């Protein structure tokens, strides 16, 4: 599997000015790591482990693999039941799953008493600063998760690490939110200009998620959410105002817009999931695309990453589970197939079915994340200079109200 050097996300990070907030957050993250030392030690720390590279493993720092593993994950990321049960039997583990229903559920739960004993959860790169400030994440080493060494170079990136270069999260699945459309009606559009065409008036469905939609709008305008100025934000808001008459529905879930597309009630979802066409049944020709022509271009890239929260009480098994999921073994492959996911380790894609593998440009992931679908970081929680998260939520609600 070819790999690439260079890194768009790194460029993005290094080009971004070091604001007071970033400086403070990085300093606090470092302090958090120091402060979290005893906690880490209590749940296994980051010392050596015997987890095998092929997935699973018999031992790791802090204890043997086994016992109860509490995972708080997106549905589908808990692996298909037969494969998971086989792994549980082999390792003597009982996986107890609870599902994340929204990005914003993760942090409050992990910080609350309900987060006690959760061994594995998820985080997205755009939330990293907030997670670091909340001192949730614990470093994950290659000794604990040997398959980290198989990550595509694009994922071996500072964005996922602490100041000491240790992984705080393990990239697991990636994709993008972009143009999902009915090709029978729209042919083969390659520009976001199509959104404002008369034929799409009242024919667009928007995935009703303020965070994703506002990041998506910023990214296709070529703005970095972390440093979007008020002037740039006005451009985004104006674009949304023009888009609204075209919108027929706000879909509360992926499944909902898939049903509407499949029934022919809408013809396009601009912020749709790139693997939608795998799951839409029916006789419509649903396609997904990252538009490359016109003034607006690209799509919103995303990476779902696994983390071991500081309240974990079975670290060895948590590490073994993470290692297993990115290993390319049966559990791993079936999980990626089940969610039509993008594999983050180089050795996995050849083992995936062609339909799943062809969803992603594995031979040029750098280009995907650098040019076509940049991974957006979150709008800042506080800033005097740039547009904040709260302002984007307000703008989204204004957009919905019309």
């Amino acid at each position: 599997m070819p790999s690439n050097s260079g890194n768009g996300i790194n460029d993005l990070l290094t080009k971004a000015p070091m604001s007071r907030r970033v400086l403070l957050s990085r300093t606090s993250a470092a302090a958090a790591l120091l402060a979290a030392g005893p906690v880490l030690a209590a749940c296994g720390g980051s010392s050596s482990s015997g987890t095998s590279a092929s997935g699973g493993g018999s031992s790791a720092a802090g204890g043997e693999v086994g016992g109860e593993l509490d995972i708080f994950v997106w549905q589908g990321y808990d692996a298909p039941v037969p494969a998971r049960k086989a792994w549980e039997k082999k390792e003597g583990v009982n996986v107890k799953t609870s599902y994340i229903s929204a990005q914003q559920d993760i942090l409050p739960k992990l910080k609350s008493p309900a987060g006690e004993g959760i061994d594995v959860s998820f985080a997205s790169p755009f939330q990293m600063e907030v997670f670091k400030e909340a001192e949730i994440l614990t470093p994950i080493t290659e000794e604990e998760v040997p398959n980290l060494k198989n990550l595509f170079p694009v994922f071996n990136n500072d964005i996922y690490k602490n100041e000491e270069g240790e992984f705080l999260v393990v990239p697991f699945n990636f994709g993008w939110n972009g143009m999902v459309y009915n090709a029978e009606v729209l042919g083969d559009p390659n520009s976001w200009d199509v959104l404002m065409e008369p034929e799409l008036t009242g024919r667009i469905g928007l995935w009703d998620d303020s965070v994703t939609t506002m990041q998506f709008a910023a990214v296709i305008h070529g703005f970095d959410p972390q440093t979007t100025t008020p002037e740039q934000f006005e451009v985004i808001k104006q674009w949304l105002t023009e888009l609204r008459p075209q919108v027929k529905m706000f879909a509360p879930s992926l499944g909902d817009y898939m049903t509407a597309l499949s029934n022919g009630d809408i013809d396009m979802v601009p912020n749709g999931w790139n693997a939608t066409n795998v799951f839409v049944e029916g006789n419509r020709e649903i396609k997904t695309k990252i538009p490359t022509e016109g003034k607006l271009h690209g799509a919103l890239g995303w990476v779902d990453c696994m983390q071991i929260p500081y309240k974990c009480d079975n670290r060895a098994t948590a590490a073994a589970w993470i290692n297993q999921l990115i290993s390319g073994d049966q559990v791993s492959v079936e999980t990626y197939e089940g969610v039509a996911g993008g594999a983050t380790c180089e050795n996995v894609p050849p083992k995936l079915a062609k339909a799943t593998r062809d969803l992603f440009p594995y031979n040029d992931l750098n280009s995907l994340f650098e040019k076509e679908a940049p991974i957006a970081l979150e709008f800042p929680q506080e800033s005097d200079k740039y547009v904040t998260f709260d302002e984007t939520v307000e703008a989204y609600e204004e957009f919905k109200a019309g």
Partner: protein
Amino acid sequence: MNIKRRTGALLMTPLTVILVMLILVPAGIFFLYSFYEFKLYEAQPAFILSNYSKVFSDPTYRTFASNTIQISVPVTILTVTAGFALAYYIVGCRSRKRTVLIALVVVSMLASYLARIYALRTLFGEHGIIGGIIEELGIGHGAPGFLLFSRSAVIIGQTYFLLPFATLVLFAGLSGIPDDLRAAGRDLGGGPAHVFRKVTLPLAGPAVLAAIVFVFFLSAGDYLTPSLLGDPNSVTIGSAIQEQLKVTGNYPLGAALSFVMVAAFALVYLIVRVAMRVTGLLPAKAGRA
């Protein structure tokens, strides 16, 4: 008497504990949240009124409130009217037919809410069952647009979902009216319409008030039907609360929106009650119940 009262209190204790623990305590905590500050995805303890001032000052929420009223008022009128007619008919039926009809009303409530919404989408979709029939008959291309992803679709959907609830409440009220009273009205020279207006309707007043309140509250608080059947002009306060609680995680603002809505509900209840009292639809004594 004393023993009877004590036994009653004893029997009520488990229910009281359940109500307090599962409704009042969580509601109290949620009320406290409405004064908290939202920072870093967290409700942080504070005592601020900015969440409430935002609810009242932000024109976005006025738009959502207006959408809510434009959906809930017609839903309430349609549902209570249709429910009254249905309940009135059922009450007048013979025993066996009445049982069958009530069973059918109850059975219609058993299907999953979501399943019923998606059934409506299949029925009303542009290329759904109705659209297919229209195309087959050659009288148009697909289903009319107002049937799905529109405000009228939400009104149709909510009326369909809430009709059984209203019917049961009204049936309970109407079946408690003795036939003798209506017979007395007729004996005194009243025609059917006059007896209905002067005897049946006032005696059914408390049930009508309960049905109105019940349907209006459920309709105004519903976020699922507007999300799944509505268009961009169907975004309601319920949807805004859901957005704050589920997507952005802003519990304080979501809580403030919720309690403003509760206050609005109380106001609506008072207005409806006074209006019914003034028009003679709710006898003063019955209204106290």
